[in-house]
């Protein structure tokens, strides 16, 4: 097993026995594990869990009032909206005993949204905007 493979295993889930054995003798991977531990966010707090539990209902309410404002103007995509709202509604009632199936949104396909191109430079948050042109050092990884 090579370091890059171990790194991928360290990114989530339980590392394999092979990865753990590598980790024991490889200081580079030990440092990777340490840095990933430093970078990871702590588990959700009680407050965050509370916020999350009330989120679906208020989002549905806001989505409905947003929709009322646009009623009569927009007809296209009603099905998609219904599916999205369906997912939110499903999550809003999840605490009730009625079984909630997987949200319908998984089957909704649509065009990617136009999202604003952000200029992080002005905030000096990044000085390296070159992406896509990256090399993968592992000989086992061939699709770049």
């Amino acid at each position, binding site marked *: 097993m090579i370091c890059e493979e171990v*790194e991928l295993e360290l*990114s*989530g889930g339980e590392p394999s026995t092979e990865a753990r054995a590598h980790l024991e003798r490889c200081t580079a991977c030990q440092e*990777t594990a340490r*840095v*990933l531990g*430093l*970078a*990871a*966010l702590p588990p*959700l*707090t009680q*407050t965050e869990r509370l*916020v*999350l539990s009330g*989120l679906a209902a208020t*989002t549905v309410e*806001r*989505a409905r009032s947003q929709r009322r404002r*646009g009623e009569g103007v*927009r007809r*296209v*995509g*009603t099905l*998609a*909206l219904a599916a*999205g*709202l369906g*997912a939110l509604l*499903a*999550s809003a009632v999840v605490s009730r005993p009625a079984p909630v199936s997987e*949200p319908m*949104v*998984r089957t*909704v*396909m*649509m*065009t*990617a*949204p136009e*999202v*604003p191109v*952000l*200029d*992080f430079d*002005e*905030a000096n*948050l*990044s000085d390296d*905007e070159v*992406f*896509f042109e*990256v*090399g*993968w*050092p592992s000989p086992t*990884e*061939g*699709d*770049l």
Partner: protein
Amino acid sequence: MSRHQETVFRVVRRYAGSADEARDLTQRAFLQALEACERTPLSSAVPFKAWVLRIAINLGKNHVRDSVKREALGAGEGQGPRVALADEALERAEQEALTRRAVLTLPPRQREVFTLRIDAGLPFAEVSATLGITEGNAKAHFHHAVKRLKEEVARLSAPGGSHDL
């Protein structure tokens, strides 16, 4: 709770300063995604989850950018003196804070891949589907993100290393 909503929440909390901000960003991401649904005909192949995650990441980035601007405007206000490191726990806490901040300074694609993988816990196949790149490309970006973070941590840990990102 909707798994999508929790996933979005887990992604935006990296960019948010509090639980309330994370809630607000999550809500806005869903509302914008729903609004976009109304406007856009159902056509090509981006699932709702990918769509809302992309919007969430962008809202998060905007949020950080605006916060940095506000901080710059109010520079010098409310900033206490830098506390000397008293013990290992404090040093660890400071390193965590600096490393988490360093994640936000990663090049965009590296940051997106990193947060979707580490914060949202998405498998690489889903990370790549969300961002519209190949899985190999997502893994490469992840590798470069980790490399960069390791360098940053090493730099910060070195004697005289700057603690200002």
